């Protein structure tokens, strides 16, 4: 299934897609595989994530707050290597969820953009989210991703100008990642009001689905965001839950969030 189809199916159910993030190899590679499976499984009642964002742990994660920084650092200290990413992607693909990779640019640059795209596509990955690669610098990546049929998921931010929103939407595919607040990743107590405005502005430029991330931490937030976005992205809160309650807690939390994105599904006209 492609990302396009995932969002189309969710739209047919009149709900937003649930997109969950965890770092690969956190706390170890086998543990992280269990966590990713749990994230998709949910509970007996409600399925979990439609899309799984597999984070590539990086030494210098400037867009991440303390929660994800610490988790990525732990994965690296436990010996995570980039080549292990592709096996993890395969196991996520086997669950039936849509795997995408979230990575800072240097590890891909170093691996070779074309080789990275080739190996990711072969493992069943559908696309890459690039928090520090803007389309202006992405010629090589765009070519590699097109060649290997991967989606190119760029970020838009409240500070993006209309010109940049249009340009970024034009270069992206799969979906657009709307960073709801000006800031780094991390669970917040409320969903920023700027998220709705950013989604509205972004939609004026594109038919692509828009996912909202940064700060979503409860089923309440998820339900709220699901009313105006096509995807609800949850990261730091999954990391915190994994730390506290392991795979069982992650499965339960994913089901909660799943109920959140479905809550208003029938009330949308």
């Amino acid at each position, binding site marked *: 299934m492609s990302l396009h189809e995932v969002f189309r199916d969710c739209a047919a159910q009149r709900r937003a897609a649930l997109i969950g993030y965890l770092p690969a190899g956190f706390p170890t590679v086998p543990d992280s595989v269990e966590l990713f499976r749990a994230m998709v499984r949910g509970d007996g009642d409600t399925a979990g994530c439609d899309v799984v964002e597999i984070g590539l742990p*990086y*030494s*210098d*994660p*400037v*867009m991440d*707050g303390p929660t994800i*920084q610490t988790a990525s*650092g732990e994965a*690296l200290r436990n010996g995570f*290597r*980039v080549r292990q990413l592709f096996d993890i992607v395969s196991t996520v693909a086997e669950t039936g969820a849509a795997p995408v990779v979230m990575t800072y*640019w*240097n*590890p*891909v*640059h*170093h*691996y070779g953009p074309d080789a990275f795209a080739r190996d990711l596509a072969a493992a069943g990955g559908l696309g890459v989210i690039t*928090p*520090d*690669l*803007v389309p*202006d*610098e992405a010629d090589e990546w765009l070519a590699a991703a097109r060649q290997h049929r991967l989606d190119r998921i*760029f*970020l*838009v*931010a*409240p*500070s*993006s*100008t209309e010109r*940049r929103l249009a340009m*970024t939407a034009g270069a992206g595919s799969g979906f657009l990642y709307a*960073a709801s607040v*000006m*800031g*780094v990743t991390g669970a917040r107590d409320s969903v920023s009001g700027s998220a709705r405005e950013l989604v509205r502005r972004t939609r004026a430029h594109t038919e692509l689905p828009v996912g909202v991330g940064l700060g979503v931490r409860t089923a309440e937030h998820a339900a709220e965001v699901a009313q105006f976005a096509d995807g609800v992205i949850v990261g730091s809160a999954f990391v915190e839950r994994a730390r506290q309650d392991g795979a069982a807690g992650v499965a339960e939390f994913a089901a909660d969030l799943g109920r959140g994105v479905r809550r208003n599904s029938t009330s949308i006209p």
Partner: protein
Amino acid sequence: MTARDSDTARRAATPGEATPDGHDPDPGGHFGSYGGRFMPEALIAAQDELADEYEKARNDPEFVAELERLLRDYAGRPSPLTEAERFGAHAGGARVFLKREDLNHTGSHKINNVLGQALLVKRMGKRRVIAETGAGQHGVATATACALLDLDCVVYMGATDTERQALNVARMRLLGAEVRPVDTGSATLKDAINEALRDWVANVADTHYLLGTAAGAHPFPLMVRNLHRIIGEESREQVLRHTGGLPDAVVACVGGGSNAIGIFHGFIDDPGVRLVGMEAGGHGLDSGEHGAALTSGTPGTLHGARSYLLQDEDGQIAEAYSISAGLDYPGVGPEHAWLADTGRAEYRAVTDDEAMHAFRLLSRTEGIIPAIESAHALAGALRLGAELGPEAVLVVNLSGRGDKDMDTAAQYFGLVPEAGITGEDQR
């Protein structure tokens, strides 16, 4: 272009002024395949605003005059060029000239960049300044400019460095800045930059990130270089006055590369002048413990730009090491990567021990205690002088003074046997 032509061309130049010299990056900030903007989208608007505002400012006679005035009346420019005869005797008998950035207010070249950017902050109507610092020199310079211009100032500094440079922490606090120790990652300069970037993303509306070196995303490498070009412009005039000719080589230490790019640009159109950058060789390149991105790194992206950097097989950024906090950085500014590839400049590494030898030698032969960063350039001059012989004329950028390094030096040379003045005791 003959030496004389380019001399007159450059004489018209004033600090920070737009003098397109054929060495500017493309509009996206690329020096060849280096530079650019590998940044979160959230910061691109601020980078664009900065680039626009800087373009306007450097063409605005009022801004240029105000910066000139501050550099002269506040920072003490021009800095002298001092001939170091007794030191030169140890450098194969070459004539060695020291560009005395150590005599600037706050004790290093960093003030040139800081005054320029702080004036720009005022122009942009922002109130809050954040900065990173390694040795503390850039932090002190930033805190100084913020005190002068009434701006709020927060300085991020690796926890390792707040220990190594405890006195500079005290200085910054005295000047009214808030110093935030950073204990993530390797707890040195690169992590301080990461933390400053995280702050910037969250507060960009009212905050300027006053980057301290010629690295980072466009327009920083261009802007910081132009603000330091005055070092090279003055040096060229001064050495011509002293010797009637151009030097054989210009030598500078390279951390992020700001003092080096500043002095190099005074001579970049003089093909006969070798431009030599000295990187931190730490415990030796083979030891893996060093900060020599150009000499032994590979291309990659860090802190917003593509350049050479120290990284492992997976593209994870490696921890740098140097006895000098200001050179303890795994990356380098993108223009240096370009100059290295084109061959216009050459880069070498000197070890801690070579630098400390030069540190003591300059102290004893000239009565000038250099910053340990600058001692790397002096060690380079000792080598170049030995290679080139007594006919050679060398200009060395003495980027800073060594007061901040007395603790390190005392330990290194065992100058205080009772270890009475250690970092531990000062806190």
